[in-house]
């Protein structure tokens, strides 16, 4: 029994070391896949999603009678312009950093 | 009014409101609270007609029933000073000898009367570490 316990502890320890150590063994190079601009790219994607959500929200607000026609058109125009700006930025980055494989 | 002054004015208004509300909170809490006392602190010093939050342990073997009333003694957590309490109504399930209880009481004659629905017994799940 005691031997088994010691064995089990050793097995767990080895597994832990193996799991935690894997990235360190592979070295920095293997993890570089996404490129240096990936962080900025992700951030822009999140901004884009938020902007799209806002456009949809405004549209729904308009359709459910909470935004007047003129107000909505102004808001919508502005939001779409901001979305376009974000898209441009994404494409500018996209030339160098391909989207991560998801 | 220029924006900066407007902003500072708004800040002052908000802060004043916060201070007034906090003051009201403290005021109501002081008037609504009851002093927490151990049996030793109440012995001979309790004022008739005032409510106290009694905190202590049920004395072993002191629980008796008289009709719907439960009579028991409460002692200091680490001590022997104890006072008699008469409580009417249903007692919580975990209530028994040696349990820590909290009950709102007022002095009545030589003993203390528990106020309705104020008896709380500590959840025994956390007691097993000691017992």
């Amino acid at each position, binding site marked *: 029994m*005691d031997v088994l*316990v010691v064995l089990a*502890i050793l097995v*767990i*320890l080895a*597994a*832990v070391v193996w*799991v935690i150590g*894997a*990235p360190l063994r*592979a*070295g*920095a190079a293997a993890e*570089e896949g*996404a490129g240096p601009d990936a*962080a900025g790219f*992700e*951030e822009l994607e*999140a901004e884009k*999603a*938020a902007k799209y959500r806002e*456009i*949809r*929200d*405004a549209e*729904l*607000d308009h*359709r*459910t*009678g*909470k*935004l007047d026609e003129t*107000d909505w058109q102004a808001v919508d125009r502005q939001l779409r312009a901001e979305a*376009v700006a974000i898209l441009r930025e994404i494409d500018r980055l996209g030339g160098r950093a391909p*989207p991560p494989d998801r | 009014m220029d924006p900066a002054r407007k902003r500072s004015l708004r800040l002052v208004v908000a802060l004043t409101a916060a201070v007034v509300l906090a003051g009201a*909170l403290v005021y*109501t*809490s002081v008037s609504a*609270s009851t*002093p*927490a006392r151990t049996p030793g602190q109440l012995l001979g010093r309790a004022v008739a007609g005032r409510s106290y*939050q009694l905190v202590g342990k049920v004395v072993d073997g002191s629980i008796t029933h008289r009709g*719907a009333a439960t009579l028991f003694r409460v002692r200091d*957590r680490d001590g022997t000073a104890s006072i008699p309490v008469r409580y*009417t*109504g*249903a007692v*919580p*399930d*975990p209530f*028994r000898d040696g349990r*820590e209880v*909290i009950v709102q009481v007022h002095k009545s004659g030589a003993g203390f009367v528990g106020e309705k629905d*104020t008896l709380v017994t*500590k*959840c025994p*799940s*956390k007691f*097993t570490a*000691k017992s």
Partner: protein
Amino acid sequence: MATLGRACLILSFAIALYGLGAGLAAWRMGRRDIAASARRSVYALAGVLTVAMVILEVAFVGDDFSFATVASHSSTTTPAFYKMAAVWSSQEGSLLLWVWLLASWSSLVLFLTRRRMRDVTPVATAVLAGFAAFFAGLLVFTASPFETLAAVPVDGSGLNPLLRHPSMMIHPPMLYSGYTLFTVPFAFAVGALATGKVDAEWITATRRFALAAWLFLGIGIILGARWSYAELGWGGYWAWDPVENASLLPWLTGTAFIHSIMIQEKRGMLKVWNVSLVLATGILAILGTFLVRSGILDSIHAFGASTLGIPFVVLIVGLIALSIGLVAWRSSLMRSEHRIDSLLSREAAFLFNNLLFVGLAFVVFFGTFFPLITDALGDRRNLGPPWFNRITVPLAIALVGLAGLAPLISWRRATRANLRRNLAIPVGFGVLVAIALVAAGGVADRPAALAMFALAGFLVAGVAQELWRGTRARRTMSADSWPLAVVSLVRRNRRRYGGYLVHVGMATLFVGVAASSAFQHARDVRIRPGQTAAIGGYDIRYAKPVGRVETRDGRVERIVLGAQLVVSKDGKVLSTLEPTRGYYPASAPFAPVSGMFGGESTSEVRMIAGLRRDVWSAVEPELSSVRPVMRTYDRAIRRMAAEKRPVDQQVLAFRVGLEKVVQTYAAGQPPATFRMIVSPLVAWIWIGGIIVFGGGLVSMWPAPRGVRRRAPAGYAARVARELGRA
């Protein structure tokens, strides 16, 4: 096996420390390989702690009384289902559950964010590993669940009967999941502040985790309330007990956060406020854990002496200092991009909502810690439920009103015309509800309840109007049928309609709370068999006493004494209730007869539950009629023991004695004290909770990801096309 468990705990402490160090190193050095290693250390932590958890569960289920915690919290007569739940009924077991849930949830979150926020995650990993290290350290150094007993007892002392309720299986894990999940937004906030990346991506991630935590904590709280109502012979669901309050605090600030984060997302405002809310919520979650596990406040949950106080205080003070320091350091990065345009806008409504939630949290905090504050001033004083009710009821009413109003006004600025158009029907409906209730009678002298009902009507009508108008708009664009249009509308706007559903659920819940607290009839009566008590329009007759001995595997589990009650209304019999009280053996399974009544005893509450009202009953039998029988058999058994008669004869005498006690009780005319409650609409509290849960799921469900393809077409067209999807 205990050795293996202990080794797992020590190992997890070491892993957590490694994760803390590696995360910080990865951040300072900007090394991705080290960051990946830190993240994997959290996975490994979850794995090792799972092994520890399994060892403990196996010990409980297999009745391994060589474990000290099994011997003191389980027994062979404990039902198998409750043996599994008994793991977290002890201090050390619940700490293990806490850290195991922390590691598991952290692993899931870090796995989901493994390719995102590469700057922020190493710091967040370090923070989460730091929390894990703290709790693993407690388990290793002060409260190990793997203590063994030198002398192994034949049987354990059993799980406290009060805790034998199905909710016990899920209430603590839900609550702890909420607590641990709230440390995740905290960790990401620290990460975002440390790296200076308080941006849109951080919001998206944090919002979802905060929502999950909010949902779990909410379910945990509701389950606790339900357990208290259905199991404790008290009949209430909320007592403003410090531990209840402690679980409510992070929930309140968390609710404020999920609302105000929307303003930051849309308008770039309130950045400092949001980050502070997340940090405060995380700290309050830790504080909640601490309050349950310490004795600093007199609570039904807290216990007298604890060794955990000082480490926890150090941790909490450290967290507060860290939070304030980080916010002050990065405040220049968090300037507002806009200002509020108008007081008649959704931003303003959200702002008021935040003030109310934070105000509520402050009030509850103040009331909870009032004894400590006054103790420091030299006169320890307590605040009771009446004070809490007086302050929180108006705030709750205002919140329901605001929750009804906010969805009806638009962002930025609402004009008078569209306010009129949007508010007319809901306000009209709310007024109608109020008038109808006043006309029906009995409500006018309860203004708080009346206001709550009317505002709930306003809220529900507003949501219905929103859904109707949205569906109608959807149908003008597509030829969908009505049901299909509703589904696709909700699917395309999950967050919006999920949120509305949560509002409806909360309003339902508050209607239940208002009705059951304002119109409840409660009585404690002492009656004899044949006598009748009248309460709230019902006549409850004590028909006859009942009694039985319940055994499990040939051993006495408990004695049940109670009463048969016949409930009738206007002379018509509705139902029969049989509330009882279960008496469990004092210590050893074999004790003299009277010992059965010196141990734990629990009320078995019985009720007629209905959508309109619950008729609730609990009984406290009077034992005076059976005391002589007990004494006779106690004496006989003592004599047999003195004469060294065989043990099985003594056991037989014990069993006969118990049967005799039970028969005597059931055949006699023993008086009993009953607590009877007629409580209207209580069921809607639980129904409201389920609706909130459903709404939370709807808004949390990830939206289908739009296909991301680079298109050469014009940007405006691309925006239009990508909007059309999903």
